[in-house]
């Protein structure tokens, strides 16, 4: 009689560090990142894939890490907010968020930064509409988004 496998070992490279861990097959990537690896910069705001607070970049593609199982990321290269700064120096996008008051509570900010990072890689000089479309998968409840648009625009210049 065969037994059902409920966990497996995976290897994921996050911000340049490779982690090898045994994970439950049903564990979400965001819970793996936050709970197992203690990379708590990425957040959870909705549990349903709507809010984008858990946005990370997996093998170059922007994903909501609550919509992916950790085992699906086996062998992948993942970028999270913790990897954006160059040492102590904020990158251009982070600095623009700070300069333009594009965050208040800061809870959506890591996901917002990752979405904006993916947007600017694909489209280094987005129009205002393109910025809005690029961020439509991320909910912010503090700012009304206006200053976030300004920050992304500034970072693209």
């Amino acid at each position, binding site marked *: 009689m065969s037994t059902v496998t409920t966990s497996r070992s995976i290897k994921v490279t996050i911000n340049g560090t490779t982690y090898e861990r045994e994970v439950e097959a049903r564990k979400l990537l965001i*819970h793996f990142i936050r709970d197992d690896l203690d990379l*708590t910069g990425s957040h959870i705001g909705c549990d349903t894939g709507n809010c984008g*607070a858990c946005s990370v970049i997996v093998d170059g593609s922007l994903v909501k890490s609550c919509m992916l199982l950790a085992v699906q990321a086996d062998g992948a290269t993942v970028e999270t907010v913790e990897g954006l700064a160059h040492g102590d120096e904020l990158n251009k996008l982070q600095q623009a968020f700070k300069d333009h008051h594009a965050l208040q*509570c800061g809870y959506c*900010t890591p996901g917002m930064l990752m979405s904006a990072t993916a947007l600017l890689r694909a489209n280094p000089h987005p129009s205002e509409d393109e910025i809005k479309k690029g961020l439509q998968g991320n*909910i912010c*409840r*503090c700012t*009304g988004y206006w200053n976030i648009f300004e920050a992304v625009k500034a970072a693209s210049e």
Partner: protein
Amino acid sequence: MSTTTAPETTEVEAPAQDWKGQSVPRKEDRRLVQGQGVFVDDVKRHGMGYIHFVRSPYAHAHITSIDVSQAEEMPGVYGTLTGEEVAALTDPFFQISSVPGANLKDYALAVGKVRYVGEAVVAVVAETRERARDASELVEIEYEPLAAITDARHAQDDGVPTIHDDAGGNLMWHGTYEWGDLDAAFAEADKIVTIDELHFHRFNSTPLECDGALVEYNRGVGQWTIHTNNQFPGFAAIMMGPAMRTGLDKLRFVTQDIGGGFGNKITSHPQLVACCLLARKLGRAVQWTEWRTDFHMSMSHGNERWFHETEVAVKSDGTLLGFRTKALDDAGAWLRYEPLGGVIWAQVTPGMYKWRNIRVDFTQVATNKAPVSPNRGYSRMQHLWFTERVIDIVAKELDIDPVEMRKRNYIKTEDMPYETPNGCVYDSGDYARMLDIGLELIDYANIDQRRLEATARGKLLGVGIGSTLDSGTNNFGQSRMINSELQFSGNNEVATVKLDIFGEIVVTLGTTPQGQGHETTAAQVVADILKCSVDDVHVRAGHDSYWNSHAGFSGTYASQFAVTGLSAVKGATDLLAAEIKKLAGAVFGGVPEEALELADGGVRIKDNPDAFLPFMACGAIINANNAGLPEDLGVTLNCRYVYRPPFEVPDIERKFGNLTLTYATQIHVAVIEIDPETGAYDIVDYAAVDDCGKRINPQIVEGQVMGATAHALGAATHEHYAYDEDGNLLTPNFYDYHVPHALDMPPLKTAATESPSPFTPLGTKGMGEGGGAGIHAICAAVQDALRGHGDAIVSDSCNPYHRVWEMLQAPAEAGGRVSVVDA
């Protein structure tokens, strides 16, 4: 994108070296943009257990049995907690209400009965989040369903089920407010406008971070450490301590970063009690992070309010004399902060208008829906929506221009400070000028032309104004109007400022910020007094009740930090500055304080700047090198100050008194275009003009204005906690509960004027909640656009596209019912 017009302010221009008044970049941001904030779910402890709450699938039912045995036997499960245990280990939470609401028996978990879908019945703790959820499936609960009440208007009908037998019915609280001479006002009136029903809908601000806690119990000293994002620990403590039969010092509240609050994180005390009981029972740290659906089903819905039989006494020229109405609040299943909403609205009784004769008959009832609790604009927003609706409905019925209607009735700047009919004192402001600025921003001068252009494109253009007040710094004495037995009054906040051994300036706040930038604005106030850079001021992040820097009303809520928090910071820093001079005077050999000044990170003799003692030396002398100092010096360089606003206990009989210290002002103007084929509309132009007195950090203030605007627009167009008649929540997540996304945002223009408050140490006014001005502006704009197209009266605060379409198709049925009679 956002345009800030240069305000013609009454502000005295700050000297160039003042930090106050500058948009200093926020100290908080550096950690937050790197994902280095510490939010509650980031806090972990070895061996901690994860809590999952088993919640009621019924809106109203008796619990006939609970069996947790299978769940407890599951590997990886640490234990459970049931209502029966809670009832044995704790007392019911203290009730704010007078009878009948006072008789409620509210516990951390449902005891014997459930009263809304999503009410917590059992808590399960396991080694992982997933295991706790699995085990919850094995908890067997048998229910005997009862009929549910979901419409507050029928909660007191004959034959309806009683939600709380202890209260003897569904009435929770009732009070009558009357000021002025209603009979005389209605006798003097030329017209009486009657509005059958107005409805302010149920929604809340849905902070992106849900509620949560990590709780540890120290058995040796009997103390709980509660890492939580509760935004009003002072309130949580007075709710929890008596219920848990423990002193408040045994409840240590700790926060660092909080992912938005908006009032919705004030009433998590039931869940926190469950966490505390479990931490003690299981002998391990326990962690609770609320799921999004749990938040929507059970946390802090905003007060849903009805206004019935409204009558307005008005002169033919539009001069408002008074109104009477019957307000009905749907409190939901429990009174967790209620019925305070039954008095909080009275902070803004006349709105921004001069009418002096007002009667409000206020009733609050229970329903089988989630409990209501504070939500941005708490209770004043509902009332201000009412006054703004009345203005626009009366203007329409009397065929008076809404701008003219407002200007004729606004309280004038020369009448400030203005005592309202119920004894509140509006401190300062120039409403008419703010309205002019708003109108100019949306080019109101050319609005007729734009209306024609829109018509040519097949669109219906509408303009709407929302004029609101953000009353801040509560006098908690107003709670006595709800229950004369209560012993609350006034308000307070605490700050400590110290000079440490190497001269570091360390500031501790009693507040629990959720994005308002307290670390930054506090540093600005300190730097101006100590004549140093904001970079030299270290403001501790977050709140810890072990810091001894909190008072009974500490927290971050109700638009008050710029007054309470910063006045405490100023007070403590003034004390420290005086102590530094006293110390230096002694060190310099008896130099009087008047001869000394602070400058360049130290203290010096005015006439002899070479005689300079840097802060580092001051800190070192007091803390580590103090031999030989005069015995009676009285200097610690560690100064604590409690700011106490100047309040009296209100007159409970007359329901009269000053209920809040400051009144920030918002004027919003919206221009919308409706597609008459579908009812869909776009906001094509929008202006938000704000006046919160002296602005410490204009960029942070503007950010709050933007955020409040976005919340209002979301509520006005989409956000709604809708229930079916069985009490099922139809919008339990962000799929069904649509909050504004990036693509929903209209163009926004902002402007600010500054009318310093004469009542506060820094001329500031609390702000941040706004008054829901966007909701009022959208309602008015929709009504304006429908002029000549059915002429529906907008009678609901939420106007999604389908409702606009219904008003176009059947204006009489879908809109409000209004009549005008000659008096």
